[in-house]
């Protein structure tokens, strides 16, 4: 008999359900007066460094219908490519940018909008630069465990072409599912849960 490893099991996930707004965006759900603001609602202030962008996201089910009860969180580096996190060892990030945003999808249109800045590049584990990206996490009724994916930027063709994570996608036809197209200052990113254009989701 060898020694026991004595590890615990991660708490198993359960769906966020249809009323996730009550807990995570109560003001959006008309439960006022408990918290002053919904967390993650404002990402950018006057002092935040970087190019202002708008990101519009939808989550679309296998019947082509946008989810009207989803919740999306994004996490990103600052304009210089540094994360505002204690685990960031490479330098101090912009103190006026947390890098984290949270939005519920609209109960009518299914769209949510993040006002943020375009992130800089951060290194992959072997030191090669990754292309600028947002790390994206999606929960909703009917989603049993939160889905991790990434949003890359359509106007970063050269960086995307050498991104070590995109390079790991065996079926190149699926790479565009992670790339948002730019129109003016707005990027549009549709996350497809199923079908021929199913978004690449990560176990990461």
């Amino acid at each position, binding site marked *: 008999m060898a020694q026991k490893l004595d590890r615990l099991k991660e708490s*198993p996930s*359960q769906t966020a359900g249809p009323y996730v707004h*009550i807990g995570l965006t109560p003001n959006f759900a008309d439960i006022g007066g408990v918290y002053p603001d919904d967390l993650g609602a404002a990402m950018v202030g006057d002092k935040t460094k970087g190019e202002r962008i708008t990101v519009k996201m939808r989550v679309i089910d296998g019947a082509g219908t946008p989810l009207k009860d989803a919740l999306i969180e994004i996490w990103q580096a600052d304009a210089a490519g540094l994360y505002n*996190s204690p685990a960031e060892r490479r330098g101090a990030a912009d103190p006026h940018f947390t890098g984290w945003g949270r939005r519920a999808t609209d109960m009518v249109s299914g769209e949510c909008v993040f006002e943020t800045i375009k992130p800089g590049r951060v290194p992959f584990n072997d030191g090669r630069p990754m292309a600028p990206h947002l*790390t994206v996490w999606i929960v909703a009724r009917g989603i049993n465990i939160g889905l991790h994916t990434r949003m890359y930027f359509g106007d970063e063709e050269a960086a995307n072409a050498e991104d070590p994570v995109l390079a790991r996608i065996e079926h190149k036809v699926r790479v565009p599912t992670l790339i948002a197209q730019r129109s003016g200052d707005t990027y549009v990113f549709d996350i497809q849960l199923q079908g021929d254009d199913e978004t690449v989701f990560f176990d990461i």
Partner: protein
Amino acid sequence: MSNIGAPNRPPEAGAFFQRDRDWHPPAFTPGYKTSVLRSPRRALLSLNSTISEITGPVFGHDMLGELDDDMIVNFAKPGESAIGPRIMVYGRVLDERGIGVPGVLIEVWQANAGGRYRHKKESYLAPLDPNFGGCGRTISGDDGSYCFRTIQPGPYPWPNGPNDWRPAHIHFSVFGHGFGQRLITQMYFEGDPMIWKCPIVKTINDPQAIEQLTAALDMQATLPMDMRAYKFDIVLRGRRSTMFENRREGN
């Protein structure tokens, strides 16, 4: 910035242990009908965590309001309180190595004692409680401990099968130190016969995993003549030591 990780040690920056996908519910669970059209069907792309998942935002205790962790009164009119069995829910946030995780943002939401949520899309017969909003939050302490007060939620019917009911439960959103640890789950109550009949609970295959989500009634921690206590520990993904990570010189 708050002190993350054990006191007097630098913040941890190792990659996370891989998730045990057999312990978690799979995406496609036809018994829970909404999952049918909302479940990815392709294989997930598996990768070691990168800096984008290892890092995460910090939530400081100074963001909390005085009543954020008290759902009995945080929506109630002055001098009034929510209707229902008064309980405290307490426990620790640990990681898979058994280490207490401080600074974890825990956000909870739930139905009222009649099983009714305060939400515009909710239409159950049970009435709203004017003194109950249904949301609370707290941040774990130095040893990973947390506690909040609420009323025990009621079970309620939901449209899935013709006669499906949810067991009494509290939703938990748990935000650890890395975005890759992000977790939402639900807490159930010891001894509730509804647990084992619920299609959402049954998305989890292993009965031991379901028991991990079932809070224990703790009569020792119960406050006499006030409120019963339920203990609910939460486990987040563990992380490897950076001491042995592949890394470039100077990193």
